[in-house]
């Protein structure tokens, strides 16, 4: 039971971090050109 007191908040915080990262991605327009992002990595310049 004791370990749950640590594990559950940790699990929730990790999830929350993911959610915040997603919101940041979205707001900074990183999902606007998925095909382009995949191709740009091949750009040699």
């Amino acid at each position, binding site marked *: 039971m004791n370990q749950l007191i640590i594990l559950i908040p940790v699990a929730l915080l990790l999830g929350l971090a993911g959610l915040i990262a997603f919101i940041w991605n979205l707001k900074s327009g990183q999902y606007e050109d998925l095909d*382009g992002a995949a191709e740009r990595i091949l750009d040699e*310049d």
Partner: protein
Amino acid sequence: MNCRAPAMDPKSIADNVAGTSARMLEQQLLHQAIELQGGKLQLDWLIPDMHCVGCISKIENALSKLPAITRARANLSLRKVSVIWDPKIGPALDQDRIFDELGFEHSVYDLRDSGDKEYKQRGQRLLLSLGVAGFAAANIMLLSVSVWSGAEADTARLFHLISGMIAVPAIFYAGRPFFASACNALRVGRLNMDVPISLAVLLALGMSIHESLVGGQQAYFDAAVTLLFFLLVGRYLDHVIRGRAREAVQHLTGITSRGATRIMPDGETIYVPLEEIDCDMSLRILAGERFPVNVRLCSESAEIDRSIVTGESQTVTMHAGELIEAGALNLSAPVMVEALGSADESFLAEIQKMIEAAENGRSEYVRIADRAAQIYAPAVHLLAAIAFVVWLYITKGNFNLSINIAISVLIITCPCALGLAVPVAHVVGASRLLRKGVLMRDGSALERMAEADCVVFDKTGTITTGNPMVEVVDSLSGLQRRIIRTLSSSSYHPLSKAISRYFIDTEEIELSKVTEVPGFGVEGIANKQKVRLGNPEWVGKIAKEDTGPSNLTNCQVAFAKEGDRLIRFRMFDVPRPESTETIQMFAKAGLGSEILSGDSLSEVKRIADLVGVEKYRSEKSPSDKIQRLQSLKQEGRRSIMAGDGLNDAPALAAGHVSVAPASACDVGRHAADFIFTGTGLGSIFDVWRISRETALVVKQNFIIAAVYNCLAIPFAMAGYVTPLIAALAMSASSLLVIANSFRPFLKESLLEPDQQSRARQEIGPEERYAA
């Protein structure tokens, strides 16, 4: 008539005349750009042939080299390049030139409307909701799995409470799109799919809170949140493909001039805005301006481009006293005209009314998901109510148990798979279309396209390329070629552009004093000798022999060096590639084709014979075209209308479904359901084929969802459903629907492109579309 002769000083005429066509294009580009902070402008170009990183860097690098451009960014998913530049440093025309030089076909996105921004914001809100629902679903599932695998009573209760604390805010945040839509539907006394969804989610939430507070086992937090997650996926996809369903009418106003210069009776000139122009006003229309209202010409003659009216891009010479429709373009010198009415009585206003009327007719179409909802929603509510009453009777008044079972019926029948059935299939259809270079306006277009049973084509710009082919009648020397190339590239007249394209491989030569003479052509000086390219009679004046009109039949353009012989060019419109095959494939699939054109009978007949269409009608006005489409509708036919010009726009809106090439005019593009960016007409057949396949997938999805519900409902009504079963069943059916929807996409990806085209030849369409 009480017109005065145009009183203009020669200098201002010269200003207006120099580089008329280039200036017109520049104006058009500026008109379509949006203003950013600091006086910068943004223009978005549509580049259909941008496929890989090579194209991206080629375009971005070339554009970035222009001093005026501060930012050029390509978006490969949308085949779009956004350019931000400073109009004070360089013209927008440079961008057009760069695309020409790189050899990319290009057209301009219209950025002016605000609908675009609203659309984007709505998409972001949905994605945020989706993120929140996903976060909540994952965390609650984590806790639920522990409960299902047999946690102790206290732990289970703690986990339920934590789940509740996550679920309540998440549902109220992520569920808003559904709650709002359900409220709207109920307010007008109707049922849509969102009503059972909202009810199920809210009831499940309420019951679960109650259960976890009293320490029961029936907590459905995970089901409620997962349900929202799946439905939001569907809702977001639906939003993505709804795309830019923008108002065609809004764009029509962009073509109309904003005002004109009025000549007062005392000779003074003032500027009058469009709304104030009225009957009998004398107006001066500069070269490159559009006529704001229907007018009568007062100047001796005028060169105008009536392509907006007839769809045929050919210069017409009008004489004093003749009528000119609003929207036609004045090509040559400034002219004096007399207004024949106000702006709302003009030709453009008429077209606008026709489009509105036609679009109203179409809005009666009920989408397949809504049709399903009309049956589904009442059935689900009825079942839940029956379950409640029956269980109340069996258990002799155990209210708690009965309501639990009724709610579990609602949860298990919640149209999760149904909510995904249409949008996922449509998104897959839309991305398959995008691969073929076709953009789609909304999902209902795919549904309507699948129902089509005949095709109506416009001629110019749709069956034909609209870019005239060039044939050189007389022989040319290398030097002459280079002179022609230089002269033609200095003008943006359609014929001149066609010639410039024809000589694209020839090097340019330096000429002095290159000037465009509106209505006639381009002239310049080469080796101290005058050279001219343009109207044959005008060019003939400097040529060696006196060329009579008999030599000039069928020849629209000529070139000559002073004192040298005349070189003639013949220009003719050719069908787009694949047009004959397309019409054959449609015929094999059982769809008849016909041509409906504003052009003359002989020209329409020539093209119809060339591509193998038996039914054709010529010299049709926009309202004739609508009439034809409506009579087809009355016969019970569902027509695909393919057209490009403004004169086709009402017909595009009137057809059961419509297709336009990307080269179509603004209004045409916005009245159409599908826009194909390739040059081949085969795209239209691809659209139809993919729509048919998508419709089939949607049907299969509905069957999957229905089978799942038929299996699940008896269990739910018998009271055997636990939160675990609900979670499993729901996710399984949703995943099955998604997998089924992606099937055609995977099949297509596995076939290499060359295999695909071979398959198209080997298997006749009739075998594939016999269904």
